């Protein structure tokens, strides 16, 4: 039996490792541990069940979000098309650190989660919020949200889920569209954009956000 020197064994092992690593990269196959590590990184802020977290900034719920929307956000944010300062400062580097090959798996994971909503919106706004969500504000030409986001606010293949979203986050998004004129997806609510005839007032935004924040 040939005696293999320690040094030879070590360098052989090193070579084997290096080869397998590059083989992984070439095949485009992604290791499970990479996905798990990345998902844990997301969950550090977005919550262990993806339910979101009311921090100094409201970290949005990802649980149950449509795969289409999550994948779209990877593109929009890493391509610098989402203008709000919070997204630029925190989410561009965060999403940029996710290997594109992992994006689908990350989106699928969060889509599969279903924790109860964080809630916490003012109870006295719920009735108004529900009415605005379901019926819009006809005299301000604001269409019904439910028409596109669904009566249970769970979205569809192309429209994001808004049920159970953190109310502070929903308020920010709706208000930001008016201020920043940043990009909602094509066909997104004109209701939220700046226009005296078409916009939701801040109290109306607060009501809708509170209502949605409690939805399972």
């Amino acid at each position, binding site marked *: 039996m040939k005696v293999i020197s320690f040094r030879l064994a070590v360098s052989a092992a090193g070579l084997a490792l290096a080869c397998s690593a590059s083989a992984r990269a070439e095949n485009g196959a992604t290791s499970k541990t990479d996905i798990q590590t*990345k998902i844990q990184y997301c969950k*550090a*802020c977005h919550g262990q069940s993806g339910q979101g977290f009311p921090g*100094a900034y409201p970290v949005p719920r990802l649980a149950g979000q449509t795969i289409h929307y999550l994948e779209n956000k990877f593109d929009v944010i890493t391509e610098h098309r989402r203008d709000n300062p919070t997204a630029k400062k925190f989410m561009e580097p965060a999403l940029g650190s996710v290997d594109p090959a992992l994006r689908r798996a990350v989106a699928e994971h969060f889509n599969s989660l279903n924790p109860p909503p964080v809630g916490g919106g003012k109870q006295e706004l719920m009735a108004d919020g529900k009415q605005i969500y379901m019926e819009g504000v006809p005299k301000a030409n604001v269409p019904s949200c439910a028409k596109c986001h669904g009566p249970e606010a769970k979205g569809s293949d192309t429209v994001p889920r808004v049920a159970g979203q953190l109310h502070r986050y929903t308020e920010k998004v709706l208000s930001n569209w008016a201020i920043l004129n940043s990009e909602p997806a094509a066909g997104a609510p004109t209701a939220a954009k700046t226009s005296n005839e078409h916009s939701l007032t801040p109290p109306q935004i607060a009501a809708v956000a509170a209502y949605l924040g409690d939805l399972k």
Partner: protein
Amino acid sequence: MKLKSTLAVLAIVTSVITAGGAQVAARGNDGETAAVTEEACPLDPRAWDADSQRARASSKSNRWDDDAAFGSNERNPGAIAAARNCTWCHGNSAQGYAIAPRLAGQNRAYIESQLMRFREKLRNNPYSQRYMWHTAAKVSPHTVAEIAEYFATIPPEPANNGDDALVPAGRALYESGLPSANIVACSFCHGPNAQGVGRIPRLGGQSYPYLKRRLEQWTEGYSPSSEHMPGVAAQLSPGQIDALASYLSFAK
């Protein structure tokens, strides 16, 4: 004259030695591993009310919440409870001392939640076990709220006791994290000025050794029911913990 000054020097030296001794004892053997439980945090408001009523009903047996034993304390009951029970370790001005962290200017909801976690033995690292479990054992939710209110309104002073060479690295980590190493930005939850919000604690100006120890404890498996922090701390290297704790000790 000479006797007086000699006595004074002796008194000072004695108190320094005692304090130093207390510090050494405090730093004692913290190698024990606590049993780690997975219980959910029982912050049920209904339990608090019942508890508070029970405490008031049996005030003789509860040395905390007790007008009977210590006389009427209608005015600023929080300050009185704090002076009697907390400032021994946390300092007369609540700015912290040795291993006892600064409480001045801390967010009310955080102080309340931590006192209840000590009481329920959910915060289980060695210092908490040794010093805070028995301290919080009999405190009623009513008194907890008063104490928290009292400390929250005292202006905090920064400890400024970190390594200032590490401040730039610590600041960068605090503000932006390090996505390539899966380190989240602390500022996202703790705020741009490390002031915290709600139950999320203010970190700015907290003592460097305290912050460092807390980050280390989460990597050692203590207090797993803090949902976020163990995962966050697990990504940090010892050098990064050092930098963060140093930066934060100066942050206002």
